[in-house]
Structures are given as structure tokens and as C-alpha cells.
């Protein structure tokens, strides 16, 4: 008991006196078949981990012990041990997994399988497959509502967001959005879910109770053609005030005021920006820039790009240790 207390005190001291909290970011490099490990204190790549073929979707397990990375061309999800930073296991996902979502407890994983129009359900503890849910053509974006009751899957050619009841595992609603929906993100207060449409060039705001599109975020960048604006990844601050939207080949991150759904600023990052992750203290936002093979670091408060870090070829997904 006493020892525990001392440990806690010590930990508090260390955290309190450190100049900046060092976090660890993991970046999947789609072409290199590697995962780059970035230290957010020194902003350098500290390790490059060899993984399977075509790594894209990447996320920490809730306990922070493993990094899961979908290696689509190997038809599996690999587990990287966060301590040893090596691949230690794999999960029985369906064919060509790309993005996935886990429930709040970190026990069940839902995987979008682009090749066979299904979402695969996996027991994370036993690492076994529980079943499949039939969805639209080319399932991609995956997210779970903060209360854990609703799973959202987007299908790229069907152009829908499928609302799936996580207890019955049945589709309860299908909401049509603009072309090629790629990513879904809930507001932390559960009142809205934002869906990016890569080819449609918009973000649809959906009321998850009424299952209706209640608004759209549109983008306009002087000197850039509409076709070049292709929204993909979305990040939202914990206070639900500001959203960041990656605009793909427009090479920019749009800063969006969540209340008015208007863009307040465009931040120039690297080429073909895909996805993003906040540091847990929300001081920084890291984005993966596919074509320029780097990661941009955005100072969230200042809304400025402060750094660029070279990673592997075609960086795609990113996750940061909790």
C-alpha cells in the first residue's frame, strides 16, 4: 500500500517536472510495409518496424499494450507489442482489412473488409472471429459511438453510412452521403457523426438518432480546383469545438468550427494528406502525408504547422500511445 502510494507520488513528480510529455506515435507506411515509431519529444523516428504487406489502418488496444495494424494484402491485422516494438501476433480479420474500430472496453474489434462487403467481428481477448455483418460495396470508414451502442460503417461505392446496433449486430439505418465516404468520426457528446466523402468533396454531418444528414461542411480553396479537394481523415478536439479535416491531394488540413460547420483556416501540410492523431494532451496533431512521405506536426492551439518528419513510403495511418 505504502509502496503503491510512493510510486504514484513519484510518477506525479516525474510528469510534473518533465519539460514536455513525450508520447509515441506509430505511423503505417503503405508502400514500405513498415511502421515508423516517432518520439514526440525529439520529433524523430526512433524505430522502423517491418510489418506485413500494405499496412494502413492502425490503432492502439485500449490497454495500450499493443498496436494493431491492418495489413490488407496479407488479409490480416498484425499486433505489435508496444514494449518490444515487434510483431507478436495476428488477428483473423476477413480479406483485405483496411480500417477498424474497437468497443469501449477494448474487447471486440470490428473490421471493414473491402473485398467482400462485410464487417468482421473479432473477439480481441481470444483473438477469434465471431462473425460477419453484410454491408454495402467496399466498406471502409469505421467508428463506434461514445456510448458503445452504435457502430458506423461507410461503404465507398454504395455511398452510405450504415448504422449498426452493436448488441444485435443488425443494421438499423442506412444514410446516403456524398460519393466515396471514407471516414467517420463522432462528436464526443454523441450528438453528431461526421462522415468525409473523398470524391464528393464534402463532410456530411449526421444526426445519429434521427439518421438524417443535418448539415454539410464544404471546402473552397482559392486557386485549387474542386476535384483536388478530397476529404479523408477527421479529428475533433475533446471539447467538440474544433474539427480538423484532411483534404488529400489539396495538401491541406481544414480547421472547422464545429458549431457553425464553417472552415476557419486551411493549414498547408505535405502532399496527399490522409489521416491524423492528437497527442493525448491535445497540444499537437500529427498528420500523415502520403505522397511526400512525411508527417506534419500541427500546434493545435496556435493552429500552425511547426514541424515535418520524414517517415517511410506512402505514410497512411497514425496512432499515438494513450
Amino acid at each position, binding site marked *: 500500500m505504502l509502496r503503491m502510494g510512493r510510486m504514484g507520488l513519484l510518477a506525479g513528480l516525474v510528469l510534473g517536472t518533465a519539460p514536455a510529455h513525450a508520447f509515441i506515435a506509430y505511423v503505417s507506411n503503405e508502400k514500405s510495409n513498415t511502421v515508423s515509431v516517432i518520439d514526440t519529444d525529439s520529433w524523430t523516428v526512433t524505430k522502423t518496424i517491418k510489418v506485413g504487406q500494405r499496412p494502413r489502418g492502425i490503432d492502439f488496444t485500449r490497454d495500450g499494450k499493443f498496436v494493431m495494424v491492418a495489413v490488407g494484402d496479407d488479409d490480416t491485422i498484425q499486433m505489435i507489442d508496444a514494449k518490444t516494438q515487434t510483431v507478436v501476433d495476428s488477428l483473423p480479420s476477413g480479406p*483485405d482489412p483496411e480500417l477498424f474500430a474497437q468497443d469501449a472496453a477494448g474487447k471486440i474489434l470490428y473490421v471493414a473488409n*473491402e*473485398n467482400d*462487403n462485410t464487417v468482421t467481428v473479432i473477439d480481441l481477448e481470444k483473438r477469434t472471429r*465471431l*462473425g*460477419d*455483418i*453484410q454491408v*454495402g*460495396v*467496399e466498406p471502409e470508414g469505421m467508428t463506434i459511438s461514445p456510448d458503445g451502442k452504435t457502430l458506423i460503417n461507410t*461503404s*465507398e*461505392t*454504395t*455511398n*452510405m453510412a*450504415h448504422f*449498426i446496433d452493436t*448488441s*444485435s*449486430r*443488425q*443494421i438499423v439505418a*442506412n444514410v*446516403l452521403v456524398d*460519393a*466515396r465516404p471514407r471516414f467517420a468520426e463522432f462528436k464526443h457528446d454523441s450528438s453528431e457523426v461526421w462522415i468525409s466523402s473523398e*470524391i*464528393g*468533396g464534402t463532410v456530411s454531418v449526421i444526426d445519429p438518432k434521427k439518421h438524417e444528414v443535418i448539415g454539410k461542411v464544404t471546402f473552397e480553396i482559392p486557386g485549387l*480546383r474542386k*476535384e483536388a479537394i478530397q476529404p479523408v481523415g477527421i479529428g475533433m478536439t475533446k471539447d467538440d469545438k474544433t474539427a480538423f479535416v484532411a483534404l488529400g*491531394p489539396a495538401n491541406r488540413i481544414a480547421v472547422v468550427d464545429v458549431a457553425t460547420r464553417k472552415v476557419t483556416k486551411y493549414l498547408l501540410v505535405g502532399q496527399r494528406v490522409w489521416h491524423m492523431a492528437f497527442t493525448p494532451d491535445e497540444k499537437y496533431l500529427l498528420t500523415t502525408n502520403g505522397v511526400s512521405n512525411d508527417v506534419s506536426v500541427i500546434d493545435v492551439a496556435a493552429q500552425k504547422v511547426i514541424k515535418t518528419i520524414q517517415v517511410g513510403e506512402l505514410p497512411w495511418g497514425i496512432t499515438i500511445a494513450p
Partner: protein
Amino acid sequence: MIRWLAGLIGFGLAATSALAAEPALIGVGYLGVAASRSTLSLVEQPAENDGLAGARLAIEDNNTTGKFLDQRFALEERRIKEGEDPVQAATALAEKNGFIIADLPADALLKVADALRDRGTLLFNAGATDERLREADCRANVIHTAPTRAMLADALGQYLVWKKWSRWLLVVGSHDQDKLFADALRRTAARFGAKIVQERNFEDKGGARRTDSGVTLIQRQMPVFTQAAPAYDVLVAADESEVFGAYLPYRTWDPRPVAGSAGLVPRSWDAAQDQWGAIQMQNRFMKLNSRRMTALDMQAWTAARMIGEATSRTNSGDVKKVTDFIKGPDFSVAAFKGTRLTLRDWNLQLRQPILLVDGRMVVSVSPQEGFLHQVSELDTLGYDRPESKCKLK
């Protein structure tokens, strides 16, 4: 345990439970010609269901989406033999199908379009690349998913000019369609500042495409045919008829690359295209048809997907409603080419990037960087609005 089982059963039921009312049935016809085209390369020999296979996949894709919207798509196929009346076949198809995807020669397509005009049937030209179908002979009831020869030539020309291969030796076949492609290439050269240093004609004297000692003979003929040319960077071949083009690469007198109908070829689609999520579609196509996907397959897929896109956006299977939406300003379709595809409202031609392929790989995709346009960079390919002679009616 029982709850658990119920959950598992639920997986299978999820899709069917969405079906409540009788689904709306949307009929799509496919009208093609039952003729086998002979190519120089055995590898390029088109399958019997070339084109149709693409439509079939899109109908499957539409039906996956349709089950969430109570829409059901059915494809009815018709192939006409030589001498058969295309109008009769099209009229029969139009009985049940409000939409017809056609892979017909230009004259037959025009006859069909005029015969079906009063019925309100919407036609999709998935096969014919003829400029005149979008220009003087354009029709308000025909949408073109096939690119035109000018679009293909411009896509190739932009790349050759970007590569600074701007001196072209143009070799033209003796058939009408070869000459039309040559016309398009000459226009491209003039537009983008390339120079045709010389033109040569390759006469089709008949003869078999498969012989037992073909290579020996070709190896003697092609260097001789291409010798004594003025200085040039690239040989551009116009040989849609498949008489000589594929014999040219590696056999020219001067060591020069070949482009056009052989070598580096402009196409709407290729089996090697794997960017922008295309790999999923290529896999789906392979699974369904046990072969790779061609440009004609893609043009038919796009046509059927345009129908599906419009029926889901309008939540209707009504032909008039769907047609108006497709022709309207809000329509676009995603087709694995990295950008949304839209219609040129002045002639109903689908704007699209064009791939440049070598038979194994996608070498580049046009429009090339730096070819600018005030409306859409895709309009740097082919005839633009101010040049158009089309009056839709």
C-alpha cells in the same frame, strides 16, 4: 448462450430484414454486336463477354446498394449478328428496360437512338469512340461513357510533350478508323506543340494474323518499313484495325519508343490499374468473371453505375426522373480514377482521366500536370465547349 446464438443468426438476417415493401425493379439492357475482333496479340484477344462483364459487375454493385433502398436491378442482354437489324433488337430490349447500354458502331447507334427517342429510353454509348457522335451527330438521349479518339489522342499527346518527345513519326493504317485516329493525333500535335516530322501509310494487304513463322518475317519487314525517317523522338501508330501496330515495338530501324495503337497506349481503363481503391473493383471483377477487366468492361460498368448512382440519389426508378438527374448539374460518379466524373452538358460526354498503359503497367494518367483549364482540367482532353458543333435534340 441462446442470446449469443440469436446474435449470430442476426448476422445473416441483417440484410434481408431491411427489405420491407416490394422493391422497385430497374431494368437495364445491354446491346452489343456478336462479332469477334481479331487482334495481333493473342493476349489482347477480347473475351466473348467483353463489356457485358463490366455491366454485370455494376449491376451486382447496384444490387448490394439497392437492398438498402428497396431497389432491384436486372440486366437483359442482347447480341446482334451481322446483318441483323439493331433497331429491332433495341426496340425489343426497350420493352422492359428504360436504360440501354450499347456497344454498337456509330451508324447503328444513331439509328437506335432515333428509333427510341419518343419512348424516353436513355442510351449509354459504352463502345464507340467516334467524334461525330458527340459533335454533328450528337443526340439528347445518348450519354457517352466511352472516351473519344480526340480525348485519347490528347491524353497521349500531353504525356509525350511533357516527356519532351515532341518529334513524331506518324504511321497510319489504311482503314477508316485508323484515319480517324490519325486525324485526332494530328489535332493533338497542333494543340500541344508537337511536330509530325513525317507520315507513312501502312497498307493492309490482308493476310493471317496467326502463322507458324510470323516472327521471322515481321522482323525483316518492320525495320525496313521504318528506315530512312527524318530525326524523330517517338513513333506514333494509328492502327485501330490491328494490322501492324503491335509489330512495331523493338523493331523500328532507329531505336525509338512506340506509342498510340501499340507501345504506350491511351485507354479508359486497364487490368493493371490499382490506384484510388481500384484494386477492390479489380478483385470483384476477377471473382465474378474469371478474367481481367478491359477498357470496354469499365465503360459498361461506369454506365450501369451511373444508373445506380442516380436511382439511389433520387430514390426512384423512374426513367425520366433518373435521366433528368444524370443530365443535371449535381450529378457525378466515382469510378476509381482519383476524381469525380461528370458529364459535359453540351454533348453528354463523360469527363474522365485517361490511363497510359504499356500492357503490363499504368505508366501515367492524363491530364498531365500543367495543362490548365478554367472549368475542369479534364476538359483539356478532347473537344471543348467553344469548339463543339453539338446541338442536343
